[in-house]
């Protein structure tokens, strides 16, 4: 993986898990200096997610697709972020599970083969609970 791309991915996760508090001036200058601060009334996570996504699109020639389940309004619901990779004979999904301890922002994940579909098809169930 190109070093620049790897750096952007690392910055992405750091950016999304950061709660905006500054651990030190050096850390911000090295990693997060390009991230915008939210305007009054804007959600920090949404603003940073959009900034990171724009950066990702910039370095990956806009290789992106978005499936809209409904009207694409900005939401304060939790965002579940996963690294998705395909190589050799396997597909992998790595998901950091963070604590969304402030009610009502909570979510849970169940994984396995679908109970309705073929037994050899991966099925993921992602549940947003008590929220929105």
């Amino acid at each position, binding site marked *: 993986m190109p070093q620049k*791309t790897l750096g952007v991915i690392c910055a992405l996760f750091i950016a999304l898990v950061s709660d905006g508090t500054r651990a030190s001036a050096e850390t911000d200058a090295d990693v997060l200096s390009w991230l915008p601060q939210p305007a009054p009334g804007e959600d920090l996570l949404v603003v940073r997610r959009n900034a990171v996504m724009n950066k990702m699109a910039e370095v990956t020639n806009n290789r992106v697709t978005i*499936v809209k389940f409904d009207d*694409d309004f900005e939401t304060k619901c939790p965002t579940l*972020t996963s690294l998705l990779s395909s190589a050799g*004979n396997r597909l992998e999904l790595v998901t950091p599970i963070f604590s969304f301890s402030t009610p009502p922002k909570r979510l849970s994940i169940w994984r396995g083969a679908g109970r309705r579909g073929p037994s050899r098809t991966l099925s993921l169930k992602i549940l947003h609970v008590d929220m929105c």
Partner: protein
Amino acid sequence: MTVKRYDQDGVAEKEVQARNLPRIDKDWVFKARPAEDRDDKIGLSHSTVPFDNPSKPLNFTGIAFFVPTTFTVYLANAEKDLTIASESNFLTHTYQVEIKNAQAALRISINKELYSNGQWVNAYSK
């Protein structure tokens, strides 16, 4: 969300089977766990789908975002001929993301359900 992998040979397409995966219990019923349990849940969840000897390569690294209104896939480390597209399927009431090159394809099918009165109801909206 379900995932399927295909090898392509010209216009012909062959599904690559995934190896056996544990089933979700057929009697499984959604029950929200106590808040204390959920709040302690920090770590990494790692899911792997091993396929049975795909003959064509399909290599990429990407990032997926799940939120209640959208599902977004970004490809970060993709070869030049790799394409990504999404569409909604009115017939199956699902949304599909396809990542493919001339030799192989990966199709991710997503449907959104709402839990209401003890049942999951498909929330396909268009």
